């Protein structure tokens, strides 16, 4: 009996141990369940994203870029299909054979294709390798015919930017280049995206690029596509209509051929830019594909800097083209009037230093009109002396010099209007009164861009409205230039008309069109003797300016010409303007004045 009781007690003890064990296991199971709750309930969304990253591959569908048109709707920058050859080496049974097949069609060396493949694989291991670009349609057809035998090749269609007018519109439009590390860092671009650089392409990048679409493909663990979601279609970028007149643009570029310089033509009534060229130029199509290193080297080592847009970026002394502004300032400040005369003997002394007029024999007694017409230096030395640098600088700034014009393409330079404060701040030396005399004829430290002179001439043409030059239509109210004697505009316009009719700018004269203009010469090195331009080495020759507008009675077009090392404005720059006005007359015969009776 005692053994039975002991056995039963023992059994109870053991049963208790079993129950304890089952509680421990139950707790452990609850612990596991709790961890599943954490992973599935709490962190589920994170893991679901990881699962989607596993199975979804996203391929961008590039949005076609917006087309850029000139004012008459002619395409300046458009998109054309371009065929690229992609190779998926894993899909090939015999890679050597595949490469030989492609090389035969492409008329290249299989080894070269293999090198491209290896280089591409190193950079982007999961994507098919780009082994050839810009296939001809015949080549495309041959690859498509062989699609069944050679599934490893795929012809990929990309939209390629085409600049039909090449060099002629390069400085207006800019170009496209592949997104760099900084662009990728913004998070708005993906590898392989093309981004607008310079010009319109850069300025209106956001509007032009549109919105890329996306293909989402479901892949298995070996990366094979098993399904595809409906694609998100791309949205093409907005088209842009420029104020540019392709005919004037092409004429300007043609006239600058073999010269170094710039032309700006704008409508003085609203600031719309009808032509803007800079020479030498470059072919922006070179950038649309990856630029070849030798092309790039040629562009950046060219001593004439073809990538520079001289119309906005070249700052030079305006030379005598500054004289109309001096006339406006002198009249408005009442230091002269229309009858004020100075005597020009070919030279005069200011602040103890002899100053020459460009005309050795002098102009004799000249009034304002004659001084403008013949560009008499001595007359404006006197005006400058009477005004002083402070007032000269103030009037120059009133007419837009020394500041950004606000044109809607990037890279513009502000130039420089010097005064005493500038001299002390920047040069750390006092302003010398003698420098005022230089500035009075647009020499010395004063620097202007062709675009700024265009704005200044537009204000003279339209009677005091300072327009913001622009490529794309927009409503930007003009600023009225304050502080100029209202009568002065007309006086200056008449003087400028005489320049072309019978003065220094006669080389720009176009029969049947009334043109107001002014020549200018920016001294490269000071000439102490009267020298002919042709006798000086090219790099030391002066820069030539011609600023103008027409018709005088009803100004429709401002034309600024700048020729680097062109010598005199009258001989180098004025004929370019003449060519542009002739083109204008062809397009607008209504501007032709009735032939004199």
């Amino acid at each position: 009996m005692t053994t039975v009781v002991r056995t039963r007690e023992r059994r109870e003890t053991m049963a208790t141990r079993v129950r304890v064990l089952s509680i421990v296991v139950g707790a452990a199971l609850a612990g596991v369940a709790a961890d599943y709750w954490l992973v599935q309930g709490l962190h589920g969304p994170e893991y679901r994203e990881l699962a989607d990253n596993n199975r979804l591959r996203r391929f961008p569908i590039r949005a076609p870029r917006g087309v850029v048109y000139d004012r008459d709707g002619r395409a300046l920058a458009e998109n054309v299909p371009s065929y690229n050859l992609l190779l998926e080496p894993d899909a090939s049974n015999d890679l050597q054979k595949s490469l030989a097949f492609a090389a035969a069609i492409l008329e290249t060396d299989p080894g070269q294709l293999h090198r491209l493949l290896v280089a591409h694989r190193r950079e982007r291991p999961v994507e098919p390798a780009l082994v050839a670009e810009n296939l001809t349609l015949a080549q495309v057809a041959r690859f498509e015919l062989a699609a069944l035998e050679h599934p490893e090749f795929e012809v990929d269609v990309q939209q390629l930017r085409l600049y039909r007018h090449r060099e002629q519109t390069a400085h207006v439009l800019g170009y496209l280049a592949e997104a760099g590390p900084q662009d990728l860092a913004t998070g708005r671009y993906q590898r392989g995206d093309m981004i607008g650089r310079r010009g319109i392409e850069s300025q209106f990048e956001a509007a032009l690029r549109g919105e890329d679409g996306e293909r989402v493909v479901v892949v298995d663990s070996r990366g094979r596509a098993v399904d595809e979601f409906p694609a998100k279609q791309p949205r093409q970028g907005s088209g842009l209509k420029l104020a540019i007149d392709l005919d004037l643009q092409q004429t300007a570029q043609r006239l600058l051929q073999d010269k170094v310089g710039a032309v700006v033509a704008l409508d003085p009534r609203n600031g719309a830019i009808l032509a803007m060229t800079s020479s030498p130029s470059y072919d922006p199509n070179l950038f649309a594909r990856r630029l070849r290193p030798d092309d790039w080297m040629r562009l950046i080592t060219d001593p004439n800097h073809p990538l520079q847009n001289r119309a906005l970026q070249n700052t030079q002394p305006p030379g005598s083209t500054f004289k109309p502004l001096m006339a406006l300032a002198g009249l408005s400040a009442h230091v002269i009037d229309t009858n004020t005369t100075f005597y020009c003997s070919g030279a005069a002394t200011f602040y103890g230093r002899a100053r020459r007029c460009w005309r050795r024999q002098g102009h004799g007694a000249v009034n304002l009109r004659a001084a403008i017409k013949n560009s008499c230096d001595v007359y404006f030395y006197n005006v400058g002396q009477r005004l002083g640098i402070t007032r000269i600088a103030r009037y120059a700034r009133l007419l837009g010099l020394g500041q950004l014009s606000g044109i809607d393409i990037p890279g513009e330079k502000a130039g420089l209007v010097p005064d005493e404060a500038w001299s002390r701040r920047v040069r750390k030396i006092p302003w010398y009164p003698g420098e005022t005399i230089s500035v009075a004829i647009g020499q010395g430290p004063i620097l202007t861009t062709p675009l700024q002179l265009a704005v200044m001439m537009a204000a003279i043409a339209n009677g005091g409205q300072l327009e913001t030059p622009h490529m794309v239509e927009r409503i930007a109210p003009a600023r009225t230039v304050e502080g100029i004697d209202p009568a002065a505009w007309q006086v200056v316009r008449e003087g400028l008309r005489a320049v072309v009719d019978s003065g220094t700018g006669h080389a720009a004269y176009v029969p049947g069109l009334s043109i107001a203009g002014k020549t200018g010469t920016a001294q490269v090195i000071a000439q102490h003797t009267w020298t002919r331009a042709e006798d000086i080495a090219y790099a030391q020759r002066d820069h030539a300016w011609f600023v103008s507008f027409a018709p005088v009675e009803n100004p429709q077009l401002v034309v600024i010409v700048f020729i680097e090392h062109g010598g005199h404005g009258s001989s180098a720059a004025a004929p370019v303007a003449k060519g542009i006005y002739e083109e204008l007359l062809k397009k607008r015969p209504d501007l032709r004045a009735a032939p004199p009776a």
Partner: protein
Amino acid sequence: MRSSSRSGPISGLLRLPEEAATAGFGRLANVRWSLLLVALMLSVVGAATVHSASAAMPVEYLPRQLAWLGAGLLVFLVTFSVDYQRLALLALPFYGVAMALLVLVLFFGQVRGGSRSWFAVGPFGIQPSEVAKIATAVLLAQYLAGLEGEYLRLREIVTATGIVLLPVALLYFEPDLGGALMYLPLLAAMLLVAGIKKRYLVVAAGTALVVAALGWGLIHDYQRERVLTFLNPERDPLGAGYQVRQSKIAVGSGELVGRGYMRGTQSQLRFLPARHTDFIFAVLAEEWGFLGVAFVLFLYGSFLFGCAEVAARARDKLGMLLAVGFFATFAFHILWNTGMVVGLAPNSGIPLPFLSYGGSFMLFAFAATGLVLGVDFRRYVNR
């Protein structure tokens, strides 16, 4: 112990207890059938999940799994019918045969998954280690049940350990670390229930640590790699850590209600390795979400509770120890596998009872279930 006094000819092995024979189905009604019901429910869930897991595989494993399930039920009938007390009389020869099989498989077995642990039987494979586990459990229970005294003596503990260490050593040579590991809960649970003094417990824990340290030097490189990867899954995300990482992604992405049956992306797109066997629970978790996980864990909980209950209400030490041994084995498999799938335990190739595809383990699970219910059935007879 009356069992030891009872004569045990082999001819009487399949005889039902006298009481059962006289009381008919009245006794059968006292068996904890819910244990079998839960096992069958889990098997159905398992078959459905195996079907989903093999959808993206060249072989459809569902028919085979159903065949194994049928075989499992037959094995259940046999082990349920056999009087475990009579079986225990044959424990030593049974154990001897099982050890012989473990030795033979080292020479004539097929290599699968890096271990020489399979006998090929037609298109099927049989793992003798599962048979050996039952033989070991029976011998161990029989040995411990025959001992007198409140607590086990050291000599008895050493003997018991020896019984288990022999198959563990043989499995080490296959090498099948996971399989070997699954013998340990058997030993630990039976020793604990049979009665072990606290100081031996402390010594055992210390020994376990020393063995673990020594084992670190003895285990194979790939096994060490698995443990290191478990400790830091990012160590080698494309190699050994890949399975665990993909498994955890599958589990987590199931969220609350799952991706839907046959629609788990991790399983159907083949990101999840061993998805029809060791990682089947990840497929379930991905496709049925936490709701499915909670449901299956609940079933496992009831199954384990049922086993423990059978053990607790058994009237004889042999039956109790046998039931506890299987309880612990099931518990360890379930906890380790579900823990492994969610990254809580190292990946050791331990299948999930009733869910994972695999014949031998299915047979073991049903054999063990039969034995456990056999204990319950005979609790009024065997004392």
